[in-house]
């Protein structure tokens, strides 16, 4: 249920200008609307893309949050790699099976 809340926040932030407005102006209140663990809430507050990836958020949601935070593509890819180094393998969601990270196939 918790990854559900994390992903729903990302979904609504991505598609709704009003949620983006509240994210800027009233973040704490906004986040109380989603069922989030403390770790998830802190990761969102900090814009910690690497941790959010490890927590299991789908990249189709996460890449737009990274773009919203102003992160260039190469930094976004690097943040996910760093997340795995810091926090270990992806814990939930469709990427739990993802393996090696020694290739830099995108060239970034």
């Amino acid at each position, binding site marked *: 249920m918790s990854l*559900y809340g994390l*992903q*729903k926040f990302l*979904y609504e932030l*991505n*598609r709704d200008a009003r949620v983006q407005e509240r994210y800027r102006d009233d973040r704490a209140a906004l986040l109380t609307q989603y069922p989030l663990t403390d770790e998830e809430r802190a990761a969102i507050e900090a814009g910690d893309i690497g941790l959010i990836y490890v927590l299991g958020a*789908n*990249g*189709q*949601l*996460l*890449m*737009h949050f990274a*773009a*919203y935070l102003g992160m260039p*593509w190469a930094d976004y*890819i690097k943040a*996910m*790699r760093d997340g*795995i180094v810091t926090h270990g393998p992806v814990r939930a969601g*469709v*990427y739990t*099976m*993802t393996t*090696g*990270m020694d*290739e*830099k*196939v*995108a*060239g*970034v």
Partner: protein
Amino acid sequence: MSLVFAGICSHAPGITGRAHMAEPALRDEFYAALRQMSAELHATKPDALIVVAAEHFANFFMNNMPAFALGMSDEYQGPIEDPEWLKIERRKIRGNAALSKRLIVEVMNSVDVAYAEEWKFDHGIMVPLHFLTPAYDIPVIPANINCQGPPLTPLHRAWAFGEALRHAADAVPERIALVGTGGISHWPATPDSGKVNEAWDRELLDRWSRNDRQALLSYTDVATYRDAGQGGFEIRTFISVAAAAGGRGTIHFSKPIPIFAVGCTVATMNIACRT
């Protein structure tokens, strides 16, 4: 009147959004193949273009995740993403609600499609339209298959969806074009972004070109994930087009462009008589 055109192509957001980062010669060869497909599409004088796209959590979420969805509006918008990020300007796109409704009623006889009276196109539809109908001169009917949030739509139901679209297209007086869009093997928006399994892609496209139903439906999600990444789940859109067209396919372009995060593909299929 009937299905008049069937094709498939890639839709990765990097194709437009990171165009400047790609090797120019390779990129331009790919773009040329897309423009050639656009010319073939227009030559069939379609009244509407159905785009079968893959779920990316732009319009639908796990609070109501449809296995299949079809748009039913006179007007859509896109891209839902930051236009700067995708490098495609935000605009309105003409639909045809009445035609959508007639198609949906037909499809519903065999496939339980969700209908949507609004739809914000993401890169999965905007990138193909940017190349295939750059003047936005053909009304679009968006379709969606859940390739993203498990439980995913089973492959044999994606085939059934293609058959249902074909029946529906043949049941209405309009000329219908159909484009399926998706990556083949790819690991989009992951640390493995840019990785492509060329051998797997060749095999998939071979099965698709031969319209080998049994071979296309023999993939399991576990094996697809292992060999082709979570992006490989999008083969569902290609499978639907094969089922709808029923003919043989021709691959016009198929090469990895790593910065686009996908093996870029352009292919068409001839329309076989229904048996």
